């Protein structure tokens, strides 16, 4: 949470200085450790069972890109929810938002080839892809703002406010086309979900978007007033208020940003799925929160960094790909996944405490 580099500021008294590594270091090690483990397991496997093809886990272009791609959407959401959690709140509605916004965006991105396009009568087909994208982002921001308003104006706990939104918005997603999926989207729109090739290396556009979003938000949280206030509110709302921060207004901003990012995630999902389904995004909110917490964000508020969340997200991706890599049986995957999530946090925390002691 210390946002200036340890080096600035001369030691005030004769006391020996503390060497501070950024907290990401420890979680980064967890990530590497995990990759190593998969690498080794794969190696053993290939030696024991004959009919398994021997190949490296990470040294594989497609896998590298899928590892990130399959969590890019979760990651975009996680970047937003990290900010919410830093304020001491939580956002359970992001998954539902993905569902609803994806439906709306998709409905505006349909190709005229679709004889049952939602807005066929209005002739809203083959539209410029900007329209569904902007619509999606706007809708997301709007829904996020609703969260913010509820929390700021009515003072109800974010958990309950966003839980309500989670239920209602999922309802909206189903209601929008009465459960019908929205398919056959124009490829000028689905283009955003595809990969492009860089020297034989497939780079998925959602990944690029994820990285850009992460960088922007990292800067915003670390170097701007917006960021400072976000941390302050999470660390001690009363003190923040007495320090002249208008908590209500700021929370609305933060939740709107989170909503905007959910909207972006939704657009990306629709572009990838090449369709909108009311069921899209179920459970994404928990994955996103998990990514943030694995990355060192504290649900107590006041602590957390986007860089950590980024790594946390990658960890989730590695786990998923690792399972298919090792052909872990479908039934065991969930069991193990839960254990890994917990383990990651435990190891990370353990290391941090140790470092604190020994430094």
């Amino acid at each position, binding site marked *: 949470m210390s946002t200036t580099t340890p080096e600035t500021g001369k030691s005030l008294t004769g006391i020996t200085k503390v060497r501070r590594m950024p907290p990401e270091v420890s979680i980064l090690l967890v990530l590497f450790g995990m990759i190593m483990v998969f690498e080794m397991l794969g190696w053993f496997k290939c030696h024991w069972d004959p009919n398994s*093809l021997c*190949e490296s886990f990470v040294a*594989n272009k*497609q*896998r590298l890109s*899928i590892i990130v*791609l*399959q969590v890019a*959407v979760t990651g975009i959401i996680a970047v937003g929810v990290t900010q919410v959690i830093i304020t001491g709140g939580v956002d359970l509605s992001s998954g539902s938002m993905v569902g609803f916004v994806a439906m709306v965006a998709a409905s505006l991105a349909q190709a005229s080839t679709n004889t*049952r396009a939602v807005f066929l009568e209005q002739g809203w087909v083959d539209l410029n892809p900007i329209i569904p994208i902007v619509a999606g982002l706007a809708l997301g921001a709007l829904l996020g703002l609703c969260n913010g308003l509820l929390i700021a104006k009515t003072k109800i706990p974010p958990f309950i406010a966003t839980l309500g939104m989670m239920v209602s918005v999922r309802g909206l997603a*189903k209601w929008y086309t*009465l*459960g*019908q*999926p929205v*398919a*056959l989207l124009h490829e000028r729109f689905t283009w955003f979900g*595809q*990969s492009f090739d860089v020297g034989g290396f*497939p780079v998925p556009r959602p990944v690029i978007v994820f990285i850009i979003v992460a960088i922007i938000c990292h800067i915003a949280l670390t170097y701007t007033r917006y960021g400072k206030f976000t941390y302050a509110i999470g660390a001690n709302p009363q003190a923040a208020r007495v320090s002249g921060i208008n908590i209500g207004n700021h929370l609305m901003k933060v939740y709107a940003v989170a909503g905007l990012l959910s909207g972006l995630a939704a657009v990306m*999902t629709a572009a*990838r*799925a*090449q*369709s909108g*389904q*009311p*069921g*899209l995004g179920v459970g994404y909110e928990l994955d996103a929160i998990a990514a943030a917490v694995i990355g060192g964000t504290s649900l107590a508020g006041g602590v957390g960094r986007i860089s950590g969340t980024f790594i946390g997200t990658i960890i989730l991706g590695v786990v*998923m*790909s690792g399972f*298919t*890599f090792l*052909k872990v049986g*479908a*039934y065991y*995957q969930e069991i193990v996944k839960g254990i890994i999530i917990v383990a990651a946090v435990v190891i990370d925390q353990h290391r941090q405490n140790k470092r604190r002691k020994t430094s």
Partner: protein
Amino acid sequence: GVSMANSDTFLTVLRKGVETAAAAANQPVQIEIADDDVSKQLSQVQNFIAAKVDAIIVNAVDTSATAPMTKAANDAGIPIVYVNRRPDDVDALGPKGAFVASDEKDSGTLETMEICKLVGGKGDILVMEGDLANQAAVQRTKDIHEVIATDACKGMRIIDEQTAGWDPVKAQDLMTNWIAAGHKPVAVIANNDNMAIGAINAMKAAGWDMKTVVVGGIDATQEALATMKAGDLDVTVFQDAAGQGGGAVKAAIALAKGEKIDAKIMIPFQLVTPANMGDFMAKN
């Protein structure tokens, strides 16, 4: 009163069938969705009974858990009609019970047998399962294994079998992971069309020629048929959702009027291939 297992693409069509048929008979319907939760569905049925509806139509979340609902309805003397999925207590539905359904076992079997035919009964295949907590997924996967066990298809070998939870995006990711793992299947068998299409997207993204791999799904959704037209999807299975919905309503109304009707109406699955796809275009 109508209680649907969930609101996936297929059941949505079925629900539409119910609504249109009811509207035709100008019989008001109250539709609830149980989100694949057995006890929620049971509660919904009990709520219907409390609301004294004329008849209850149930699209069972789990065909092995229909007994309590049947009992509740019978006790209240309200007709109960099971639609789409064949309840296990089918012979104990009583005078005021009926079902309009198809046998879930057929769908997976039809799909796999056709694929087996297309690949000449041998080669590596990948299986994409739906949500493992969901009966249809488990049943369809079981069918796949049974078909492959038959002599005709012995040559086929399942190299991996994973769940994508009915979700096209998850399916896409899973397929990409498989591609990354270097799998070169002759066929991909999915528990439903959504996942099949996801898999197709992934394979196309990886630059595969869809002629070289057989992909099968179930449901024959609009999107699926379009994909089939494009030559990407090879097999899907059609089930007359709308027809079932309508049939259920007719049966319910009849029972409510106290008329005597045949309590078992079977509506078979139908295989859809590029050859006969034309017949189904308009149906869903």
